[in-house]
């Protein structure tokens, strides 16, 4: 799997490269500014074989402006190549940015706090999920998203357990992962999921990724 990394702090860039390599991912480019990132994403410098990478790990704040350069480059690249998998990392997470990343309706999006790289297994898992067209939303984003849906009657009708399942599902986790996290069987997760979709009046789907996007679209409406 070919990965592009955009991170301006050398230590973190180096650490990420090593961590991904240790888990068998190939880092084809590690850049430190927005312009080079955009070139690596849509230009031909994305790797030896050329073409876009399988996934990009991007810091929001990059030179030269040190504002949201990385985010804007990622959004621009995804406008040109819809569904191009991008995992955005940041020192802080904002619902506004999560919305912008999800707005296209395509999968292949991740938005995580930088702290999440502390747990390398979980982090690499998230990278693989995004590369496969899935989603990886930070628990903090989802917590705030759920909080802003507090007034919603349908969300209010969910049982506490269903709410837990909803939160994990919105993070982008598969039924198997949710079952493992909540120490329940996959079948009971599937039951909760069906109930959630019924209560939120959403079209059920067998496809994990499509299900996650439907839930996020509902919470973000």
């Amino acid at each position: 799997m070919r990965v592009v990394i955009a991170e301006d702090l050398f230590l973190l860039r180096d650490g990420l490269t090593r961590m991904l390599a240790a888990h068998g991912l190939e880092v084809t480019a590690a850049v430190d500014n927005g312009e080079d990132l955009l070139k690596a994403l849509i230009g031909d410098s994305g790797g030896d074989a050329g073409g876009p990478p399988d996934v990009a790990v991007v810091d929001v704040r990059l030179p030269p402006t040190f504002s949201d350069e990385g985010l804007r480059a990622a959004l621009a690249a995804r406008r040109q190549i819809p569904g191009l998998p991008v995992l955005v990392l940041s020192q802080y997470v904002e619902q506004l940015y999560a919305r912008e990343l999800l707005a296209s309706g395509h999968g292949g999006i991740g938005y995580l706090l930088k702290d999440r790289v502390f747990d390398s297994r979980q982090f690499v898992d998230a990278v693989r999920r995004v590369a496969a067209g899935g989603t990886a939303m930070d628990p903090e984003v989802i917590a705030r998203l759920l909080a802003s849906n507090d007034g919603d009657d349908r969300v209010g009708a969910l049982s506490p357990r269903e709410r837990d399942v909803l939160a994990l599902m919105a993070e982008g986790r598969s039924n198997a992962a949710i079952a493992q996290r909540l120490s329940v069987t996959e079948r009971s997760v599937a039951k909760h999921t069906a109930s959630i979709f019924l209560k939120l009046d959403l079209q059920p789907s067998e496809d994990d990724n499509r299900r996650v996007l439907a839930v996020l679209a509902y919470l973000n409406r």
Partner: protein
Amino acid sequence: MSEPAMITGQWRPLRRGVRGGITATGRGLALAGLAAAQLGLLLLLFLSPILIGLAIAVLLADHGIDVRQQVVLALVLLAAGLVAGRLAAVPALLGLRNLARLTRRLLGDWAGIAVAEAYQPPPGPRPPFHERLYWLTSDPATRRDLIWSAVNATFGWLIAALSAIAMVAGFLLIASGLSRQFGTSESQAFTAKPGSPSLPNPVVVHVHPGGAPLQIVTGLALATLGVAIAPWALRGYTGLARILLAPGQAELTQRVYHLTQTRTETIDSGAAEIRRIERDLHDGAQARLVAVGMTLGAAEDLIGTQPDAARALLTEARTASAQALAELRALVRGIHPPVLADRGLADAIRALALDSGLKVDVIAELPGRPQPPVESAAYFAVCELLANISKHAGTRQAWIDLHYERGLLRIDVADNGSGGADPADGTGLRGIERRVAAFDGILALNSPVGGPTVATMEIPCALSLPKTSSC
């Protein structure tokens, strides 16, 4: 080829002079025209005392009319006077103020003389009548506007209109001279004239027949004189206006007092803010990092002998470092919110609305970015207002409207909650007032019991042009 050029070269200063004179005449005339409006507004302003005076006069008069009729008439006049006093004073004063402001602006545009304004900030968007009246009458600048209006409406305008009067008189003389000299229907031309309001008619009418060439020459001289004196007349008028319209010592003293006060408050709150940050760092992230260091040290000691215990300590260290990061994040958000730094005020307020837990409809359009301190003050003010809504208003629906117009950044934050908010109650609203006052901004709160509540902030500021980068 060079000859015509030379001729135009010679004529150029003259032509420029004439053009300048005519422009100055037009401007003088326009300025003088304001006097008519001022006169009307002055009459409106004093309508109440005039009517009441009339009422008293009617009462005191003893012409043989019926006493009952006399009393009724006086009462009607008195009532009209009282009503006029309530209805007319504020619009009349505001009208006079706007005319004075217009004059100041025209002086700046036309004569290049900037006359400062020193009006007190308005009490809010929709204050009650007595507050508006007090705001207007207590302002020394209003007294100045009144004096200026009285002077301008009586004789001031004559100075501005001097050259126009001379020119009109000159042209009338020329016209009548020409018609006497060449015209066949001179008597008709003359019978039409006396009715017109222009000044020199009596002169024209009584001129002896045969004095026509003299009349034309005099007219030409008068018109030329009018053009020639126009710039001087305008300058004289400008001088007079400047003396009467410029703010005096009292306003400047008041302004200095206001600035000193807001500066002190800004410095105080800045210092308090720094103390808070220091304390948060000391008790939070710093302490956690010390703990991380100690835990790592302990893990190092144990790793050879008790690897399981060491692993538990490492997990603990990782958790503590994540907590330290979370605290630093919260702290940074409180100092300078990331979206504000990245995107500016409009998006930062959108992000704030998303995070508020309320359902907030945001309309935010800014053609550029205000200075960072203004952005920051506006952001935290909105933050505080949204927090107030979720704490006290008992509603989840709010509206924010952010826009920039004529040098003012205006933010309305409204909710359909229970109302009854009072700045005197809490420190929050007072804090917002203080924040925006540092930029000469104001906060107006309209919150009747039962709601809805509308908080309006206006901060005068300039916008920088948006960045041209299209990425």
